[in-house]
């Protein structure tokens, strides 16, 4: 169950006092929206990293791989 404090903490914000007007069910719904939007961003970033590496011309790819995936996860 979401609260205005948990929404603020999840976003790393100090406080979101104006969310007092929302019921717990509405805050749950809001959290769902925020989470879904964040997941879309996550997916776009991850696929963007991989696609960037693929798009780099082969002679430069080794260096690009080191920059994009410093931990070697790519």
């Amino acid at each position, binding site marked *: 169950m979401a609260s205005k404090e948990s929404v603020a903490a999840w976003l790393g914000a100090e406080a*979101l006092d104006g969310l007092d007007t929302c019921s717990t069910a509405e805050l749950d719904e809001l959290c769902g929206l925020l989470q879904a*939007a964040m997941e879309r961003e996550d997916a776009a970033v991850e696929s963007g990293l991989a696609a960037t590496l*693929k798009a780099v011309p082969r002679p430069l790819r080794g260096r690009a791989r080191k920059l*994009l995936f410093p931990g070697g996860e790519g």
Partner: protein
Amino acid sequence: MSTLAHRVETMKLAAALGVAPEAVSMLAAAPPESIRALRTAYGEAVFARHESRFRRIAQVAAAVPAAVSGRIAQLALPPALAARVAAVMDAPLAVRLAGSLSLDYLTSLSVSLDPLRAAPILDGIDDDTVVAVGQGLLARGEHLTLGRFVSVIKPDVAMRVVDGASGADLIQVALLAEDPAALDALIERIGDDVLVAAIDAAHADDVYADALTLVSQVSAANRDRLVGLIAQLDAAAVTGYLRSVHAHDAWAVVLPGLLVLDDAALARMVNVEATLADGVLETILAVAAETGLGEVATRLPGLLDEEHRAALAG
């Protein structure tokens, strides 16, 4: 004016989350400044979550010639992601890179570009390109993006972007402007004929609240000018606006502008059907008293026609 500001902030939050405005209806009772704070917090959270990844992509862009990075970006990066990467790049590199991107891609990218983070980049891009991108956004109906950008581009460039825009487009861009000062600078440069077309468009589309939001967001001088233009419309349009003012409890915003009108214009404006509705004239006088606009009480009754005097007395 909370209802109007609320409407605008709801649209902006929905766009940031990639959903329709109805999807954030759970915030119907939240103050607009809280919705704005939520949008800002979400934007910061997304950025912070992936900033290191954006920087890594930016490093790759810096490691290859601009033309190659431009090709890579257009092949591999969705424009929304490219916009976030641009925000962490050194401005000179980002400007060089922008020069190698197609106008279409650049336009798509700018939809997700944070204008504040990107301000140094926008400063470096030549005005003709900024205008071309802005006009591309206009053609795509990206009013929200343009509303953000008029706050960070030079007023003269903003004017070139909206030059030739339809009245409906113009009012949408204006009401979504992020910064009231930029909005004022734009309104000051727009001729009366174009503003009348914008106000007319709101009348034709029955979206009086849009024009009213515009009136509420500009400086006193521009507000007076806009109210003066509304006063010149026909009675049906004026009544539409005044109904919207009453419905949004926005008399405090509009009354100072009405007082600038001469008696003939003020009489034409108040003697319309909208002010015959129960309690409207009483509300006007009450709001005038609350807001220290005593002149309304001295001028208005003498300008009312017989039917309106009866409505006030009744």
